[in-house]
């Protein structure tokens, strides 16, 4: 019964799947759709700003668009795409058959999806939130934002936050507990390492945001006074809670990209990662410091010289581990045999553009200098260099790298390179001029700007760049279509890479590993190439590493059962969320559904049926 489930491809099999690879595909498809939607929103913003004093968008619509653009990119495009890679790659890299909690994994996906759909339900209803993704109080309280728009923001982020925390929990346990025999921490691939760090970040960063959102919801709905200056509260507290979460969130988005690049650069340089332990620990350090720098988003609030000096200093410290990573990547390439496949181009593109974003970051780590930069287009330039030049390039890098593994088909190199160069040019054409427009006096979140401020040319160039961005998706989509129609077969290890996911067929069988591999070194697939003198202590020179997985499992494999209950649970939470807009009855009904789903889940046998 369950055996057929594992192989069937009907709609029911997708609704009940607990296979991390299928969940990864769903995360990817939905995240990519949201990326496109948010990209269109960004394109509309650029159209409005192409020239001064345009009236293409009215101010309310503009404010809604930039709110939706930011919120969607961070929570419904960036994070799910990151999690898609966690899902697909991590179990394969550590030699596991699935994640630690397959049903919880499905649940995470469904609540994320429902959170996104709920947010976008505000579009046809024409009540999109308009307080910015940062939603500063008191502008977002019931007095200044009376409609339901902000409630859509609050509730959708609350529900999708539940999915994020569940996902963080899942991957933390998966990586700590599900590693193949011999896969010690210091033998884990870098992407897995960064996934581990990011999981911990998610677990620690989301609760403060959840609490802030609950305060906001209560202030709006139940008349509490968490951010009410008239009652003695300080609305700045919202900013603290938001950025205590918001800054680690930046690292949640960037560290996985660092991890991807740290796996890709060695592969296409044919050289093991330079300074592996240093790269790992610099990632840990970045994550740790990430909790101590949130005030650098608030230097203009007026918290006093001591607070600003402390947080400015802490922020500068982050430049050190970040720089270490960049130098180690360059050192990895140094002396290598560089193959400029598309994935490698995106990896190198990341190193170049992230450096620019990092350096402008250093510029506003200095609180006085930041007073001229914060809330201007200079900052917009900075974080787009970081989030596109870093996160998005990293994700594309991973996409081109693991696509053959996931689908069994090769992508076309020419189209891939066209995609890279178009997006690389677009990034720089769109966002480089914003450094100038920002410093010359253009604040963020303004739907228009006056003539005569000298900002016209920069904005026009930025808008032109945005068009190139849109164009850059043409070769990507073309490439996907082409791969689907007539992509060449990928084989087990098309890039001659060094980690475990390349030991099996592409796409991997649903049980991943016919035989759980034993690992006795880093880069196990390369050990014949690694000269004895560069082997590390503990590496056995003649150690046996399975080069290729057998066709069929020699012993029966027990796989987790598919289940409807994660979906039911998520539906229950969605109903509660919708009820949060003002229907207590619906909330209670949703609670009931959630409870039913939870009990049924708890008493359903997770394993047993699916023997392969």
């Amino acid at each position: 019964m369950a055996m057929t489930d594992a192989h069937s491809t009907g709609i029911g099999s997708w609704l009940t799947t607990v296979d991390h690879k299928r969940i990864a595909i769903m995360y990817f498809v939905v995240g990519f759709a949201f990326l496109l939607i948010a990209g269109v929103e960004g394109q509309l913003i650029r159209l409005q700003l192409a020239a001064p004093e345009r009236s293409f968008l009215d101010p309310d619509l503009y404010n809604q668009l930039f709110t939706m653009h930011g919120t969607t990119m961070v929570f419904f495009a960036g994070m799910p795409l990151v999690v898609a890679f966690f899902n697909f790659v991590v179990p394969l890299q550590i030699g596991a058959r699935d994640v630690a909690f397959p049903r919880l994994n499905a649940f995470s996906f469904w609540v994320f999806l429902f959170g996104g759909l709920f947010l976008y339900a505000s579009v046809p209803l024409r009540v999109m939130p308009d307080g910015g993704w940062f939603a500063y109080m008191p502008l977002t309280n019931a007095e200044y934002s009376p409609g339901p728009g902000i409630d859509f923001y609050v509730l959708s982020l609350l529900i999708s936050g539940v999915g994020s925390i569940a996902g963080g929990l899942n991957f933390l346990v998966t990586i700590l507990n599900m590693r193949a025999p011999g896969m010690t921490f210091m033998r884990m691939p870098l992407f897995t390492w960064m996934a581990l760090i990011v999981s911990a970040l998610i677990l620690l960063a989301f609760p403060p945001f959840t609490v802030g959102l609950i305060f906001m919801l209560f202030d709006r709905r139940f008349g509490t006074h968490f951010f009410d200056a008239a009652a003695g509260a300080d609305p700045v507290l919202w900013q603290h809670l938001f950025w205590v979460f918001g800054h680690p969130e930046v690292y949640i988005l960037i560290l996985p990209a660092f991890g991807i690049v740290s796996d890709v650069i060695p592969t296409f340089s044919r050289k093991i990662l330079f300074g592996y332990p240093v790269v790992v620990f610099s990632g840990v350090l970045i994550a740790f410091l990430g909790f101590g720098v949130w005030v650098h988003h608030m230097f203009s609030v007026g918290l006093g010289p001591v607070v600003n000096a402390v947080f400015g200093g802490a922020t500068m410290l982050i430049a050190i581990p970040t720089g270490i990573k960049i130098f180690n990547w360059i050192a990895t390439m140094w002396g290598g045999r560089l193959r400029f496949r598309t994935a490698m181009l995106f990896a190198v593109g990341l190193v170049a553009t992230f450096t620019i974003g990092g350096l402008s970051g250093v510029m506003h780590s200095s609180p006085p200098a930041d007073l001229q930069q914060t809330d201007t287009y200079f900052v917009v330039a900075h974080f787009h260099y970081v989030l596109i030049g870093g996160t998005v390039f990293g994700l594309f890098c991973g996409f081109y790298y693991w696509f053959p593994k996931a689908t069994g088909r090769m992508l076309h190199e020419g189209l891939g390179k066209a995609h890279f160069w178009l997006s690389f040019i677009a990034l720089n054409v769109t966002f480089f001029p914003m450094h100038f427009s920002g410093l010359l006096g253009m604040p963020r979140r303004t739907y228009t700007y006056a003539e005569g401020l000298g900002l016209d040319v920069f904005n026009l160039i930025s808008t032109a760049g945005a068009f190139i961005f849109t164009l850059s998706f043409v070769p990507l989509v073309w490439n996907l279509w082409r791969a689907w129609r007539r992509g060449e077969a990928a084989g087990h290890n098309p890039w001659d890479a060094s980690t475990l996911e390349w030991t099996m067929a592409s796409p991997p069988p649903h049980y991943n590993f016919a035989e759980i591999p034993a690992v006795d070194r880093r880069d196990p697939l390369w050990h014949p190439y690694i000269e004895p003198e560069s082997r590390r202590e503990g590496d056995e020179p003649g150690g046996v590493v399975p080069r290729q997985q057998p066709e069929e499992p020699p012993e029966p494999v027990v796989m987790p059962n598919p289940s409807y209950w994660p979906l039911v649970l998520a539906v229950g939470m969605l109903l509660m969320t919708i009820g949060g807009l003002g229907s207590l009855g619906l909330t209670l009904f949703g609670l009931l559904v959630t409870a039913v789903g939870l009990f049924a889940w708890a008493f359903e046998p997770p394993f047993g049926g699916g023997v392969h």
Partner: protein
Amino acid sequence: MEGPTSTGIPNRKLAMWSFIGSECMLFGTLIATYMIYRGRNLVPPYPHDLLNIPFITVTTFVLLMSSLMMVLALAAVQRNDLRATKLWLGMTALFGLIFLGGQYYEFNHFVHEGLPLSRNLFSSTFFVLTGTHGAHVAGGVIWLSTLLVRAVQGKLDARHAETVEIAGLYWHFVDVVWIILFTLIYLLV
């Protein structure tokens, strides 16, 4: 598939501890808010007008003792003593219920004394902080009750000791949080 794990710690137990780590941040943020706003309340009633320390000491004691019941239940199930398991699980849930009853009484009393949720800064921070804790206790009581039902049905024995242990971890954590709240809210007014 639940074979030996890399760390030797069962998956679910590791997950519960990680969740508890995450919950530290949740309560930490709530506590930080309460502490920041302490003494900033502008509208009466004020904390010292209402907080009844002898009463809350009693319910605190009850919750502390429920933690003892919980470890005894775990010890019982580990040695497959089902009678004791049922007894101690039942006692734990009962003590949890008594604590919740005390909290219900306290909230009700406050509202009657003119402190509904939306009254002032104190009511906002107090009710949301202690209410979040109370919701955790309520969830724990439901969880323990299902375990109790399983035990009565005879479906809970030493093989399920891990399940009881994980519920226990959650329960003790909720207790630990109350240890902090009791001191910070009631004794440091």
